[in-house]
């Protein structure tokens, strides 16, 4: 308690002082109540944060524990290096799915990154302000469109188109999935790159123009290199999204457990295989364990990507 009230209140504004004192009630009681709420609230917040961590570890442990049981019946070598996936007959070679996932992701990025970066450059450097004001929200909305919808569009528009173009009966496969995924991750990559490019300080540009370079030269020699770490960050996020995407892929890739030897062979990836088979297997079967192991693989890959992003950010923070 402060003792100063009594002596300093000699000519304090009377009404103000009175009204405060009356409404304060028993100040000690109110204070301890506030203090109690304050500390309780803090505890609630800490527990919530810890809970988030628990969820992550819960997932990791559960996936790992279930996944590892695969190796009771299947050899390590078979799971990772065999392409023979025939669970009914006890063959659990997951290589084809792993290969499918990596091939699909690579192909997606090859398609999406150049276009996304061009869109970002266009948005950040060339577009007039009013157009930028409308395009950016549209991109944001595109990010929010459900993946099933992309899959559905791929199934009903893209695949018939591909069929016509190639003259095949079946167009499901890597290419179709990659195109759908590319369209999906395009807005994500473009928006984050756009932010990175916009964040490049104006002085770099001014310096470049002052030296007599053209707009084209400025963009490709100065702005893009300066925004490089931001763009790489965008690409990795897009990659994480592509690897983990399930529904859009399921609808167009064909879902056949065979190794993709061409762009139009129906095949399968880790995610699509899990979602197609998990609901129809017994919980205590090797088949199920194998699916969990595949899930764990996915999890590990995406966590590794995040670690990569963090390292990159750290490096970026040091450089600037």
């Amino acid at each position: 308690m402060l003792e100063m009230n009594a002596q300093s209140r000699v000519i304090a504004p009377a009404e103000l002082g009175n009204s405060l004192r009356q409404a304060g009630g028993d100040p000690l009681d109110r204070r301890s109540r506030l203090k109690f709420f304050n500390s309780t609230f803090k505890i609630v917040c800490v527990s919530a944060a810890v809970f988030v961590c628990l969820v992550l570890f819960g997932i990791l442990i559960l996936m790992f524990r279930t996944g590892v049981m695969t190796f009771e019946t299947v050899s390590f070598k078979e799971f990772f290096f065999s392409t023979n996936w025939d669970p009914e007959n006890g063959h659990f070679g997951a290589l084809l799915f792993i290969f499918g996932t990596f091939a699909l992701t690579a192909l997606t990025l090859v398609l999406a990154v150049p276009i996304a970066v061009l869109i970002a450059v266009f948005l950040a450097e060339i577009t007039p302000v009013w157009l930028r004001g409308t395009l950016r929200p549209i991109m944001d909305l595109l990010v929010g469109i459900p993946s099933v919808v992309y899959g559905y569009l791929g199934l009903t528009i893209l695949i018939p188109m591909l069929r016509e173009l190639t003259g095949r009966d079946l167009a499901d496969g890597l290419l179709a999935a990659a195109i759908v995924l590319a369209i999906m991750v395009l807005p994500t990559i473009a928006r984050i790159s756009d932010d990175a490019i916009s964040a490049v300080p104006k002085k770099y540009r001014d310096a470049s123009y002052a030296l007599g370079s053209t707009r084209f030269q400025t963009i490709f020699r100065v702005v893009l290199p300066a925004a490089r770490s931001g763009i790489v960050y965008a690409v990795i996020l897009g990659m994480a999204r592509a690897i983990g995407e399930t529904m859009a892929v399921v609808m167009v890739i064909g879902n056949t457990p065979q190794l993709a030897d061409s762009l139009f062979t129906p095949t399968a990836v880790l995610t699509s295989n899990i979602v197609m088979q998990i609901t129809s297997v017994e919980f205590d079967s090797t088949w199920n364990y194998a699916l969990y192991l595949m899930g764990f693989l996915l999890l590990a890959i995406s966590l590794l990507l995040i670690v990569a992003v963090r390292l990159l950010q750290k490096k970026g923070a040091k450089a600037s």
Partner: protein
Amino acid sequence: MQATALIEINKLDLFYGAFQALKQVSLEIPQRAITAFIGPSGCGKSTLLRTLNRMNDMIPGARVEGSIEIGGTDIYGGDVHVETLRKKVGMVFQQPNPFPKSIYDNVAYGPRLHGITKRRELDEIVENSLRSAALWNEVKDHLKRSALSLSGGQQQRLCIARALAVGPDVLLMDEATSALDPISTIKIEELAQELKDRYTIVMVTHNMHQAARVSHQTVFFLNGEVVEYSATEKLFSDPSDQRTEDYISGRFG
């Protein structure tokens, strides 16, 4: 010195981590008068001001040694309730910082925090505070408007009204006019003159003329130390330390 000392600072040291921002500061601040802190930037004057209502508590690594007594109570003592201290020692900041709420809600914010909910009481406090801050006549017809629609000078007076609304005894002004135009600055200075009859005012200013114009007592800081403090007239006309003389005659800072 006409009044008794309200605040007594005794051998105060303040550290930010390894850096010592205040060294052995001792001074007395008289009641119901204006005390000005002057000195070059980085000399510790704002830091000292912020120890008076313990706003430095929130800076990680800040550590205080020595004592500050307000009315005989050490405010860094364990039994002090920080929220009440801040209620009794109000603060106005360098940049006007009204909340993005209406003018009324800005002033009523503090009283509401401290448990006043009755509409009539709030109305009264808001009006009195705005009157004390010489803002009432300008805003009384649109109290519901956003505080951000006011001019910079009005915003700063609103912040003063907001600080007065919780019924403080001491008012700290941290370069409260440095972001304002000359006319608004004069208004705030006049306001401080009126308020000093009811409040103990401590102001930090980078403007020596302001200190000379409005304050009764002036404290000159250099490198975290108090070089000299005395009645304003004496400090400016007959400084006893060479460094003070150099500073007020404009040789550095």
